[in-house]
């Protein structure tokens, strides 16, 4: 997996964690079980730093697609996009260039190969 994809995956995981920590219902449940969630601002600063490491166009694509999908970066398993579960063409391009990524032709999600 190229470094840009890895950074995107980390960003996506961080975004989910931040969203959940800010979700009143989810946060209350975790806090009632004894898990404090006081470091949201720290996570937001980490997110800012991480976003700066990602190519601007790629980041914009991710941010745009995040408004549509909860998971923008998804794995490919057996030539199937695990975002929309549609098959990918056999000759689908593998991204050798560290600054480009492969998108699902059906849903547009950013793909990574396992």
């Amino acid at each position, binding site marked *: 997996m190229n470094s840009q994809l890895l950074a995107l995956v980390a960003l996506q*995981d961080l975004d989910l964690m931040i969203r959940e920590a800010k979700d009143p219902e989810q946060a209350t449940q975790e806090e009632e079980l004894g898990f404090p969630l006081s470091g949201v601002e720290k996570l937001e600063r980490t997110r800012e730093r991480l976003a700066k490491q990602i190519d601007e166009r790629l980041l914009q694509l991710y941010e745009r697609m995040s408004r549509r999908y909860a998971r923008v970066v998804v794995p490919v398993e057996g030539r199937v996009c695990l975002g929309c579960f549609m098959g990918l063409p056999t000759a689908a391009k593998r991204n050798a260039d560290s600054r480009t990524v492969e998108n699902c032709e059906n849903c547009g999600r950013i793909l990574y190969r396992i």
Partner: protein
Amino acid sequence: MPTASSVERRSETHLETYLRPTLFIPELKSKKKSSVLEEMVAHLAQHQIARQADALLEVLRQREALGSTGIGKGIAVPHARSTMVTERAVLLARSSKGVEFDAADESPVHLIFMIVAPPVERDPIYLQMLAQIVRAVRLAPARRRILEAPDFAAIRTLIGTQLSDE
């Protein structure tokens, strides 16, 4: 107190379903929080639960930055959802000497339940497992028995019995 037959008859909780003998570290080698997380993530990677160990480790570290998962009384439940996780899993580890885990009560941690799952929004099973772990180890005798249990099968039975008693 349930009888042996009633324990057999009842349906398994989510937590028991996910407790597997391969996902058990009887005695952790590491003594510090950061290296314990590393050791446990390496175990998950070895069993194909983590696609990339480093990336999952980073997510768990970020979760600790959000707030320590050392909930006190010698228990920690590090947990995170990550794109790098292939399936929902619980890894149980014990440390007889104890691990410094920035726990709420500052006491060393002896039992660590690591929960990982793919990044599905509002995953009710994930939250139920967190709640079941907290319930299973709420009482001191239960914690002691789990720590002293001779093997994984005994721990699994103890946890099942504890949850059915509630």
